[in-house]
């Protein structure tokens, strides 16, 4: 049984760890292979100081001056009903790492550069474009959906861009002695690689989150391994002592045991990696949906078998086993040969150990507090989390011993007193699995509270932010104008939205131009604002910025933000913008149109009677022959937003359940092994007239009581965890802060689940006890033991 538990514990721990690592590796690999839009963020670029285009003459001037730059032109094109983001590149001047497609084979390059042209897309996009364009289409599996790569000349024709380009890619190696940018092209801004839209950086926090969960599950699994090895070695002590007495040196004995453990670790590790693959296959579709929803990153929902994580999985299994068995092996190497050959009172409570653990816990809390006050970044946030969880786990046995001691003091009957005293004695033997249960429950409460709080805030945010009944994104500014003109007399209000993709405080971001309307004043979710914020916005005297930008740049009401075109605007308010990783600023519509005529003016919102929304949508589509996706109603947008949200946390929920399962397994492993060595404690009570059935019932009550106490301890730890996640980690990772909401009903549900897990874990050992043959109990009293 111990062997089974050891193999199971180790393989499950390895499975969860390698599963998460496999997902991370797959996602990161796909970022590297991702579309040009992504790749272009991974190299340095030159972008216009204001506006959205660079004259070709500027490009030529730079090349002549010795600058190794390559032009990019991008923009949206509709082929019939299919909207595609066209990216024009110049393969002859582009740095290799910035090219997302392989052009070096056969006559591909020739076809790509030819007048007829060649467009690279994903396989899915190629299918959708069938019959919609005469442009030849080729498939490149590395491209994300919605992107088409063409030659720059082809892109200029498709986008009607004339002699302009969007930006210039700067090759990593540049010749010495070239004139500075300010001299050759003063209208351009240099964006270093880190300032560009770096998808890997954006998604790092998400992967760190997954890794933290994987690590937590692995640690919980290692608790099983530690506990099983410890108890197995304890039971084998008489054999070890005999072998030592027969002349086997301690070093040889320890070496043989080490070999045995490494062999078992490799077997379990192999099984774990296979199971980990299963975990990854199950979770990857949700992870890719999450990454697409949150960051727009395209990760295929399928998994490749990579040799690296096979090796890493086996390595972590062996390493975990060695760490878990180090103490037991050390004890074997120092085994006294003359001590009585009986199992040591393994479960004896040690006040010194409890005190040492409590001290270590306090030190960890202090360390966490220091990281909270002095540290910064996601890593500091996770340091606080780790200190909190580990400290709470270490404090648990002492806390349980205290509560159980109190129970003993208050108990009256002899059986009740024995029950509490015996429970106290079981705590050291069960402490590791109870710590594992505490970690799993705290993580559940913490993450559940975070997700629940996020959900409540997000739903309220969507209700406020999506106040218009319809949202329209026309295919061109002209279409937008005619749609608005037709709608104006038929609806309550048309709210045009102009958008400029630009750089805000060195980050990729958006400038949003909105009209002065009561809808915004009444609904827009402002976190802080000056009293006259909306008036100043409408008059073009001030701007509003999103929370992400505010936190990253430490900007607030009264500060000023430098905008393209040498406009430094005062900030009149900060608005919530959950789910958007990029910086955003809001200005009055007229101001944006006046300062940035190149801004996209194809979007607008429509305020109308809710009852007439559907009819209006149908009439608009019919009258203007609009394809799907041009008009979206408020309910659909909210539904889409919530879908993204739910999928975002589906992986977290799955890992939560798995971690709780592993903790249940740890409890089962401990109870099974303890049940084997507890007979000397139970047999005298049985001999004095307590039936096996009653003893079994008391064992069950004991397990449930310990699980219930652990759950009670997990609630405050989980809430502290939620606070750290909401107030520290989220702010660092995503740039937004959320209010903490409490969900007591969820706790009741989780408490029930914890008790059910304890009931299941105790069921087999308890059943075994209730059916134990008297001869097994009598062995305890046998004189010839």
């Amino acid at each position, binding site marked *: 049984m111990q062997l089974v538990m050891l193999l199971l514990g180790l393989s499950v721990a390895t499975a969860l760890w390698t599963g998460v690592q496999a997902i991370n590796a797959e996602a990161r690999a796909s970022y590297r292979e991702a579309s040009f839009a992504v790749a272009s963020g991974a190299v340095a670029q030159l972008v216009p100081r204001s506006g959205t285009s660079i004259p070709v003459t500027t490009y030529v001037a730079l090349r002549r001056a010795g600058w190794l730059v390559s032009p990019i032109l991008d923009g949206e094109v509709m082929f019939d009903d299919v909207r595609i983001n066209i990216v024009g590149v110049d393969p002859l001047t582009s740095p290799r790492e910035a090219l997302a497609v392989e052009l070096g084979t056969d006559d591909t390059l020739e076809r790509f550069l030819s007048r007829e042209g060649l467009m690279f897309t994903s396989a899915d996009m190629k299918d959708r474009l069938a019959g919609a364009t005469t442009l030849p289409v080729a498939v490149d599996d590395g491209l994300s959906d919605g992107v088409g790569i063409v030659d720059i000349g082809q892109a200029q024709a498709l986008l009607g861009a004339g002699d302009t380009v969007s930006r210039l890619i700067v090759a990593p190696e540049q010749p010495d002695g070239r004139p500075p940018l300010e001299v050759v092209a003063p209208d351009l801004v240099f964006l270093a690689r880190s300032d560009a839209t770096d998808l890997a950086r954006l998604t790092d926090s998400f992967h760190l989150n997954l890794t933290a969960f994987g690590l937590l599950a692995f640690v919980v699994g290692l608790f099983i391994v530690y506990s099983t090895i410890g108890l197995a070695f304890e039971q084998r002590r008489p054999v070890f002592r005999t072998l030592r007495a027969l002349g086997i040196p301690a070093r040889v004995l320890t070496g043989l045991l080490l070999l045995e453990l490494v062999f078992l670790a490799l077997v379990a590790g192999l099984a774990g990696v296979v199971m980990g693959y299963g975990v990854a296959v199950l979770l990857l579709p949700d992870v890719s949906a999450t990454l697409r929803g949150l960051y727009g990153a395209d990760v295929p929902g399928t998994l490749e078998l990579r040799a690296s994580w096979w090796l890493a999985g086996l390595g972590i299994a062996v390493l975990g086993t060695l760490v878990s068995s180090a103490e037991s092996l050390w004890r074997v190497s120092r085994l006294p040969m003359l001590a009585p050959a009986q199992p040591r009172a393994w479960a004896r409570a040690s006040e010194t150990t409890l005190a040492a653990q409590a001290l270590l816990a306090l030190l960890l809390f202090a360390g966490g507090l220091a990281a909270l006050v002095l540290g910064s970044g996601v890593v500091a946030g996770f340091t606080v989390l780790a200190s909190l969880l580990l400290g709470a786990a270490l404090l648990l046995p002492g806390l349980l011993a205290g509560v159980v001691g109190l129970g003993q003091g208050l108990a009256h009957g002899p059986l009740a007193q024995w029950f509490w005293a015996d429970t106290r004695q079981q705590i050291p033997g069960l402490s590791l699995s109870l710590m594992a249960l505490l970690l799993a429950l705290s993580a559940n409460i913490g993450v559940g509270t975070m997700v629940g709080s996020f959900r409540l805030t997000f739903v309220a945010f969507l209700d406020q932010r999506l106040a218009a009944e319809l949202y329209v994104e026309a295919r061109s500014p002209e279409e937008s104008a005619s749609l608005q003109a037709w709608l104006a007399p038929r609806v309550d209000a048309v709210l045009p939205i102009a958008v400029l993709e630009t750089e805000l405080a060195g980050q990729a971001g958006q400038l949003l131009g909105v009209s002065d309307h009561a809808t915004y004043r009444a609904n827009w979710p402002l976190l802080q604002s000056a009293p006259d914020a909306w008036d100043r916005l409408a008059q073009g005297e001030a701007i509003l910025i999103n929370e992400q930008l505010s936190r990253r740049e430490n900007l607030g009401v009264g500060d000023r933000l430098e905008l393209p075109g040498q406009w430094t605007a005062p900030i009149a308010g900060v608005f919530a913008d959950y789910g958007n990783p990029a910086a955003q600023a809001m200005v009055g519509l007229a101001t944006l149109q006046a300062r940035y005529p190149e801004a996209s003016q194809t979007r607008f919102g429509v305020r109308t009677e809710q009852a007439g929304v559907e009819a209006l949508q149908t009439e608009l589509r019919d009258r203007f022959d609009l394809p799907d996706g041009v008009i979206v109603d408020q309910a659909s947008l909210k539904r889409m937003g919530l879908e993204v949200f739910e999928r975002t946390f589906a992986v977290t929920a799955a890992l939560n359940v798995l971690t709780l399962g592993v903790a249940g397994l740890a409890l089962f492993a401990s109870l099974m092994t303890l049940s084997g060595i507890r007979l000397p404690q139970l047999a*005298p009570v049985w001999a*004095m*007239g307590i*039936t096996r059935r009653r003893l079994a019932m008391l064992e069950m009550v004991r397990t449930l009581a310990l699980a219930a106490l652990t759950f009670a301890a997990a609630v405050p730890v989980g809430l502290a965890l939620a606070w750290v996640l909401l107030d520290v980690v989220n702010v660092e990772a995503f740039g937004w802060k959320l209010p903490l909401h409490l969900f007591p009903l969820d706790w009741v549900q989780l408490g029930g689940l914890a008790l059910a897990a304890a009931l299941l874990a105790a069921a087999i050992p308890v059943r075994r006890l209730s059916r134990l043959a*008297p001869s097994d109990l*009598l062995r305890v*009293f046998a*004189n010839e*033991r």
Partner: protein
Amino acid sequence: MLLALQKVEKSFATSEGPLKVLHGIDLQLDAGSSLALTGESGSGKSTVLHLVAGLDSADAGRIELAGRNVVELDDAGRAALRRGVVGLVFQQFNLIPSLDVASNLSFQARLADRHDKAWQTELARRLGLSGLLTRYPEQLSGGQQQRVAIGRTLAARPQLVLADEPTGNLDEETGDDVLALMLSLVREAGASLLMVTHSMRLADQLDGRVHLKSGRVV
């Protein structure tokens, strides 16, 4: 007659088939008297003790204890018998490790609902345990642990004390002291004693002796 065994038989299952360890044992014990059960290792003397205590069940025969046939009792009935009628003293002491000496002493008496604080104090004094009441079993010597086990049994005022090699784990001098104390206290409590031992020297100190050989009374 407090205890009477008639034609008691018992077998144990082994890998080579059933092994019969008792072949129709007969013995009697009067109230207030003591009897030694002697024999070599494997003669079946501990098995007799276990059957009388209801710790195991006989295959055949009758075990009459305080007016009840132990063989016919179910698990709960035997547990009640152990709580109320008999007291057990083992060679391995078998104290409850999680309880201190005072709680160990009172444990069975309280289970049997016969806790008498004055009697327990007297027992602790006579057994030399008064200064050890707050200690735990692991903090006591073998002799001290066996004295606690005897005190625990007698504190419940059982009608029959069943002792299985009670001095087997003690040196001769300590063993003699402990046995003398036990015999004296058993008599004072008005209980009967059935004691398993392979020492004729110890057996001679009791009122009677039954010798077992290969599962038969000889």
